[in-house]
């Protein structure tokens, strides 16, 4: 019974102007479709358009496959009937007369009813129980009875499609249920296709097969009630603020957020009058066992390996066939990434999203702090800059971010089976626990299970783990499902005793001891080990370690080359004799430029340039290579209006208030020096900067759209990820090698993308080896089918790179009732 009764093909509706655009709906026999949305969003207009009362502005409406406007009005009337909100106030008209008008499309010129018509009228009266009022005047009966009569009239028309505009408004609860149960019966028993608008969300939830949410001039969402009725979406759709909802009490759409598992106390106990009466067997219980599972990885300290563990878990769950998403409420990082929508988010969640094989979205990291000095940070919410704040200001502001975080999470939850949440820093910074939105506060909000990881490399693993557990409150401690000892170097057999002690002292399961992994993936922030590399390889790249270095992941790509060292240089003394000098991006360009000058780097870099060495500036570094940087709007803080640069490139930069965030796709053109052989190669990356750089005459652009200029072997570009493509990287290294008379094997170089994929799989297989993944699934309440586990583990053993494709669909996630704290 899936015949399409009524279809709107990409219609745009409205009176004088477009009210809702691009509506594509279809009504099928026996199904109930409900429109919800705030007052004035266009529900009634849509209904009027659909039943032909209003001409659509664009598109086509098909009734039984025919353009509704091409049909004769009587033919259309035999297919479709309506019940509107327009008050019907005929004078001196009995209910029976009203019902009889439904036979209009069937009677002759004088409208005389024959036996068939009379039978239809009687049937309609019976179906709506209106016999007792049939001979009373319509104006004299109650609103509820009127609605029944109007429904009877619509039924009497014997339509295949029934359209009702707010059929329950003004009715008391008894008539509401009465009318809606009749509508349901019409759909199920008479196989009518029903389209209606409703304001009562809880009723819409029970009644509908499909819910269409309208708001802001468009269809916001079409889906099953379960998909549409999440608290945050409804709040957003109707613009309900946190406190305003108090008046309603608990509503079924509240607390249906998937993070809460599947529980809905109101429905379970039949607490709502409406619900308990409306719910029939088919709606009860059947679909109650799904919902998103949330696993949170917390660390005992910064850099305990949370990001990497989360990324690995993301990949593992993804390999096992679940829809996984990463989430971190708040990131403090210098590195950020630009999503396809032009929004900014932390790199760590980008890596994790890549592990989940999905497009990074800013909702995976709703709050991003980019420190620009010891005290201040740029605050980015949902991918957009909100402003600069110092710690105290941010602390005060943080509370307001809770709904944003919740919304972001709910958005993710709609498309995920499992969400891996990353904590931040230590979860027991006792002076900062008020309004915690990153660790246990968030875990509580999302009802997450927590894994606690400690960093054994830095020592004191028992104090870290057990001390942290001790400092948790009882409720928080209960959230912890297991411990991980991370960054273990050497022979794990030596730690067996330690494992036992940990388990005994903590009362928690030790999920595993993870070795110090040599995995090359993007790092979260400046606190990363690669900064400490001092070894000079035959081919040496020196990256100037600016105090406010940012987006340094650009250089991870070099790590796949053997014989190439990437050193982060903090002083002229350690600059040595590099083949390539890179000045990276900065969060505080003028400050770091002053630092360069103060530490003698300017001279050193100029000397290298005289030797025709390759000098590469990216973003902030590019700006520093120019003649001067001015900051008329004091975006980087007061007092530093203008600073002369290294003057190696004939460009000037003005820092602007507006941030440029775009994804770049272009090619190298007209490059001078060693890069001249790379002309024509495609470049893909992204830009993210506040400055606008203008060239003097004679400057040679070497990437499109003025994103980069060069002069001899000095290059400057705004494009992050410049070296990510295999051709660029190998071409670049080979060209420099040729210039310097060195040889480096570039045969193993991969596109960054392939390289990363390989690294992620490597990470996942390492974690599978050392962690009890089965226990994690158990504690999340996920029961996996044995066959699938073994199949996948075989695949892992044989290191089959396509293993994840064999894993198939998600396993059944079973219910876990009774644990809901909400």
């Amino acid at each position, binding site marked *: 019974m899936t015949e399409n009764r009524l279809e709107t093909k990409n219609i745009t509706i409205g009176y004088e102007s477009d009210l809702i655009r691009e509506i594509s709906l279809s009504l099928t026999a026996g199904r109930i479709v409900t429109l919800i949305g705030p007052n004035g969003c266009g529900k009634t207009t849509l209904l*009027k358009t659909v*039943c*032909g*009362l209003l001409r659509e502005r664009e598109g086509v409406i098909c009734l039984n496959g025919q353009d509704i406007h091409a049909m*004769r*009005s*009587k*033919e*259309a*009337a*035999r297919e*479709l*009937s*309506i019940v*509107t909100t*327009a008050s*019907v106030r*005929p*004078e*001196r*008209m*009995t209910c029976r*007369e*009203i019902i009889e*008008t*439904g036979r*209009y*499309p069937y*009677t002759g*010129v*004088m*409208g005389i009813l024959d036996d068939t018509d009379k039978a239809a009228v009687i049937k309609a009266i019976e179906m709506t129980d209106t016999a007792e009022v049939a001979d009373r005047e319509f*104006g004299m009966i109650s609103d509820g009875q009127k609605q029944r009569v109007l429904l009877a*009239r619509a039924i009497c*028309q014997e339509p295949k499609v029934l359209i009702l505009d707010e059929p329950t408004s003004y009715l008391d609860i008894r008539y509401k249920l009465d009318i809606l149960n009749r509508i349901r019966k019409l759909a199920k028993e008479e196989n009518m296709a029903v389209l209606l608008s409703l304001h009562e969300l809880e009723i819409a939830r029970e009644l509908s097969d499909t819910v269409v949410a309208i708001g802001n001039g468009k269809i916001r969402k079409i889906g099953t009630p379960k998909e549409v009725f999440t608290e945050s979406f409804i709040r957003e759709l109707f613009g309900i603020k946190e406190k305003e909802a108090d008046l309603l009490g608990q509503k079924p759409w509240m607390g249906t957020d998937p993070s809460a598992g599947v529980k809905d106390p109101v429905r379970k106990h039949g607490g709502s009058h409406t619900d308990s009466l409306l719910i029939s067997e088919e709606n009860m219980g059947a679909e109650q066992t799904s919902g998103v599972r949330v696993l949170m990885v917390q660390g005992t300290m910064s850099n305990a390996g949370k990001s990497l563990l989360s990324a690995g878990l993301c990949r593992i769950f993804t390999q096992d066939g679940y829809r996984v998403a990463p989430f971190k409420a708040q990131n403090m990082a210098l590195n950020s990434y630009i999503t396809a929508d032009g929004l900014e988010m932390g790199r760590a969640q980008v890596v994790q999203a890549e592990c989940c094989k999905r497009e990074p979205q800013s909702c995976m990291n709703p709050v991003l702090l980019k420190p620009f000095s010891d005290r201040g940070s740029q605050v980015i919410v949902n991918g957009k800059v909100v402003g600069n704040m110092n710690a105290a200001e941010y602390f005060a502001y943080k509370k307001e971010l809770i709904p944003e975080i919740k919304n972001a999470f709910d958005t993710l939850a709609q498309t995920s089976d499992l969400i891996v949440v990353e904590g931040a820093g230590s979860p027991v910074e006792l002076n900062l626990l008020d309004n915690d939105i990153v660790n246990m506060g968030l875990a509580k909000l999302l009802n997450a299970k927590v894994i606690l990881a400690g960093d054994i490399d830095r020592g004191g693993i028992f104090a870290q783990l057990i001390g942290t557990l001790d400092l948790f409150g009882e409720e928080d401690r209960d959230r912890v499902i297991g411990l991980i000892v991370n960054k273990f170097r050497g022979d794990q057999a030596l730690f067996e005793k330690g494992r036992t002690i940990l388990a005994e002292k903590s009362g928690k399961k030790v999920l595993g001891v993870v070795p110090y992994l040599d995995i090359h993936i993007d790092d979260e922030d400046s606190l990363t080990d690669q900064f400490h590399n001092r070894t000079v390889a035959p081919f040496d790249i020196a990256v100037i370690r600016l105090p406010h270095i940012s987006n340094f992941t650009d250089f991870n790509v070099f790590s796949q080359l053997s014989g190439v060292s990437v050193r982060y240089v903090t002083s002229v003394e350690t600059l040595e004799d590099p083949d390539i000098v890179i000045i990276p991006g900065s969060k505080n360009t003028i400050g770091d430029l002053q630092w360069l000058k103060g530490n003698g780097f300017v001279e050193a870099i100029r000397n290298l340039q005289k030797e025709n060495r390759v000098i590469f500036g990216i973003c902030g570094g590019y700006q520093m290579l120019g003649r001067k940087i001015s900051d008329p709007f004091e975006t980087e803080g007061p007092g530093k209006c203008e600073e002369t640069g290294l003057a190696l490139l004939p460009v000037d930069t003005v820092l602007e208030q507006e941030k440029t965030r775009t994804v770049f796709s272009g090619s190298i053109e007209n490059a001078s020096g060693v890069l001249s052989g790379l002309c024509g190669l495609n470049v893909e990356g992204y830009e993210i900067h506040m400055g606008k750089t203008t060239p003097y005459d004679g400057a040679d652009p070497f990437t499109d759209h003025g994103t980069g200029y060069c002069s001899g072997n000095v290059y400057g570009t705004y494009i992050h990820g410049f070296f990510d493509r295999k051709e660029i990287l190998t071409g670049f290294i080979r060209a420099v090698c040729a210039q310097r008379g060195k040889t480096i094997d570039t045969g193993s170089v991969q596109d960054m993308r392939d390289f990363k994929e390989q690294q992620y799989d490597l990470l996942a297989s390492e974690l599978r080896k050392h962690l009890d993944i089965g226990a994690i699934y158990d504690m999340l309440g996920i029961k996996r089918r044995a066959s699938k586990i073994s199949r996948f583990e075989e695949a892992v053993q044989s290191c089959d790179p396509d293993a994840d494709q064999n894993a198939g669909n998600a396993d059944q996630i079973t219910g876990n009732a009774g644990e809901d704290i909400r």
Partner: protein
Amino acid sequence: MNKRRCLLTFICISVLLLVLMAWNTFMGSIGIPFERALSIVFGSVQDGTDYNIIINIRMPRVLSAVFLGGGLALSGYLLQTFFANPIVGPFVLGISSGAKLAVALSLIFLLERGIHLNAAGLVLSAFAGAMLAMAFVLAVSVKVKNMSILVICGIMTGYICSAITDLIVTFADDSNIVNLHNWSMGSLSGMDWQDVKIMAAIITVCLIVSVLMIKPVGAYRLGESYAKTMGVNITLLRVMLILLSSLLAACVTAFAGPVSFVGIAVPHLIGGLTKTSSPKIMIPGAFLGGAVITLFCDGIARTVFAPTEVSISSVTAVLLVPVVIVMMVKRRGANSN
């Protein structure tokens, strides 16, 4: 809909109609003995002043009262249907006055050139005036959805048209004035058989077309949305309602001048008696009711101050305005419940 009640009402109205027709035929400023009058009516006497009075003066007058009254009430009913508003009628909406103005203009314009306008020409010019006034009212009704404002606009239009008509009459030749003055006040005097034939033809056609519209008008009572989704051709229905009601009002005005309040009050009286709004009852009911009321009022206009004749509008106003007021008060009361 109570069928017995409707039937009873129809019987009463029909009887009343016959009685009033007889009364209007036999009564008048010239006293004619009953037996003689009866023999004149039944054709046994064929000459004399009495014969002339009854056959060529009173009988055309009675018949025109029947047709014009019926047409006027029907016009009122159609307008009320169109606007879904019981307090409109051709007079209240200024349609009658528009027709009156057009007739006055064309009469004087043509008389000055020595052309005597025949009945059909009168109807035509009245129809043009009625349509103009209707167009104005429709324009207003599109702009303002408020029915009271619509009615006020109609009344204003009526006043403007009447004022202009008065102006024309003031400056018209003396010879035209007497005739025109009488007419512009509303009068059924001076009808001849030729007039009756023309009005009977027009109004009968309108009545038949109205009867054919019973089905869509019945559905239209539920409002445009419902009617349209039931398959009513709304545009056609609306155009027909406008054309018919204007033609009926124009016809009445062309022959009798503006006759007030019959159009608005009669449908209501009939509805009140039959307790239904079904067009099956209302269309014939309003027609007969209009005929009865107009006959009655004309009789009074002729006889109460005989030999002086009062304008028929004075009588209809005095008799029917209270009906309209009572109706409005009742409605107000009903709505607030």
